[in-house]
């Protein structure tokens, strides 16, 4: 890969109690590209991205070894400022989860919890973020309305705007479109093509065709292992590992 590396994972292992969910994962995520993680249910891909922003800390009985190098430091170190980390590595979830507040307050939430109070600056940030998420045109006249009145696709883009407001470097997306209809899905996918110029994006998806459409690199996870990682076209046109071949041709999973 010719591009710069944003996150470098080395020998990552993770256990939930006795169950080993991630086995010796090593992978370099390129900067300002979309990397897709595919694999059957339960293969560890969601667990993997949750490790990158330390979201797995919220779960009981988790043990992690290995290194996730970001910005020259190991994210997994005990002295990592997790709050700051999550500002730089943000996550979008499968089910859109806007706060039960207004659209404006949702987007302004991030900057506000980090201390931003200036009304004018907040307004600018909100507009910039909503534009960045391709949502401004649809909500600019309803910023004070409750976010829960937006459609599913709009809510998901709102969640993206919420992240953009704190100016992250990396966007983690856990099946962001699986709860959305095809048109909303396309809008999110188009958005990804625009966003990747400024952000490094890692997307978990169980929809292979989506991975094929949006990503430049794809990693195939199976039973907690990273089986194959290649440029997307290579992984889908000529996979090297038989397990990958069987999965992408739909012969199992």
């Amino acid at each position, binding site marked *: 890969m010719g591009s710069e590396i944003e996150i470098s994972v080395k020998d990552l292992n993770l256990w939930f109690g006795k169950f080993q969910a991630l086995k010796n994962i090593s992978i370099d995520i390129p900067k300002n590209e979309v990397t897709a993680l595919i694999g059957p249910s339960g293969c560890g891909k969601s667990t993997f991205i949750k490790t990158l*922003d330390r*979201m797995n800390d*919220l779960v*009981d009985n988790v043990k992690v070894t290995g290194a996730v190098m970001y910005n020259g430091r190991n994210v997994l170190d005990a002295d990592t400022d997790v*709050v*700051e*980390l*999550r*500002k730089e590595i*943000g*996550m979008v*979830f499968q*089910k859109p*989860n*806007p*706060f*039960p*507040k207004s659209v404006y307050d949702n987007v302004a*939430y*991030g900057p*506000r*919890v*980090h201390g931003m109070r200036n009304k004018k600056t907040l307004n600018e940030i909100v507009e910039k973020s909503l534009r960045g998420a391709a949502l401004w045109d649809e909500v600019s006249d309803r910023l004070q*309305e*409750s*976010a*829960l*009145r937006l459609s599913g696709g709009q809510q998901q883009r709102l*969640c993206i705007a*919420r*992240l953009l*407001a*704190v100016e992250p470097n990396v966007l983690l997306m856990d099946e962001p479109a699986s709860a959305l209809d095809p048109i909303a899905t396309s809008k999110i996918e188009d958005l990804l093509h625009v966003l990747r110029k400024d952000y490094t994006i890692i997307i978990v998806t169980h929809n292979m065709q989506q991975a094929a459409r949006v990503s430049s690199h794809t990693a195939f996870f199976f039973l907690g292992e990273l089986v194959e990682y290649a440029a997307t076209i290579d992984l889908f046109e000529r996979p090297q590992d038989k397990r990958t071949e069987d999965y992408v041709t739909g012969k199992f999973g």
Partner: protein
Amino acid sequence: MVRKRYETVPMGLLWASGIATLIILIVILAYILGNGLSVISWHFLTAEPALWGHTGGGIYPTIIATLAVTGVSLLVAAPLSVGGAIYLNEYTKENLLRKTIRQAAEILAGIPSIIIGLFGFLFFVIYLAPYTGGWSMISGGLTLAFMVLPISLRTSEEALKTVPADLREASLGVGATKWQSITTVVLPTALPGILTGLILGVGRAVGETAAILLTAGGSLNLISSLRDPGRPMTLNIYDVLTEYRDTTTAYGTAAVLIIAILAITLITDWLMNRYTKKLKGL
């Protein structure tokens, strides 16, 4: 068609049971309000009670006493229950400690009020007399707090539980601290449930008699401080009936009490409804 009959008979019985509750409520309300409404007047609500042997007094001091004792109990119970619920739900995992605390709350809720009153008497009235003033609003309020606490702790915990986990994750996902997430996202969302629980507790406090009997004192004088003894409305009904056979005042007090409780319940419901709708953006 025989099967249809087997359907309608149980349906009818069930309907009757449902209606029964409504009928009972209506009967009680009708009886009390029927007899008591006429007693209520501006004078009744604002005047001091008549002296021994005379009639025509008011129940102003008892209203104040009720407010005092309820206020004290809320002041103590609210932070303890909400804070406790936040600690249990947000900061601890589902372990033995949590289960024990929950079990303790349920047992506490089941203890007869007279026994709690007895404890209050021994502890607040006698033992802590220098601080509470012996028979006083403080003693009464603190004792009531013990009864409000288990209910509101439980309902607050339930309310917090209903806040979906992904809202907390979303908040953490933009880099908020845990405490920020709780105060700016979780609590506002859980507020209706929490407040409802507190109101339920208040209802219990307002209507409590046995514990009050043993701790509040029963004096008819208007309280000048919380360390003074007083006679809340519930106690007044009992006293007035047993000491003076004054059914008029009793009905009047009862009517005021019932109207107050009705008002609190209905207004809280309405407010929470509006708040919830606003949250949902409807």
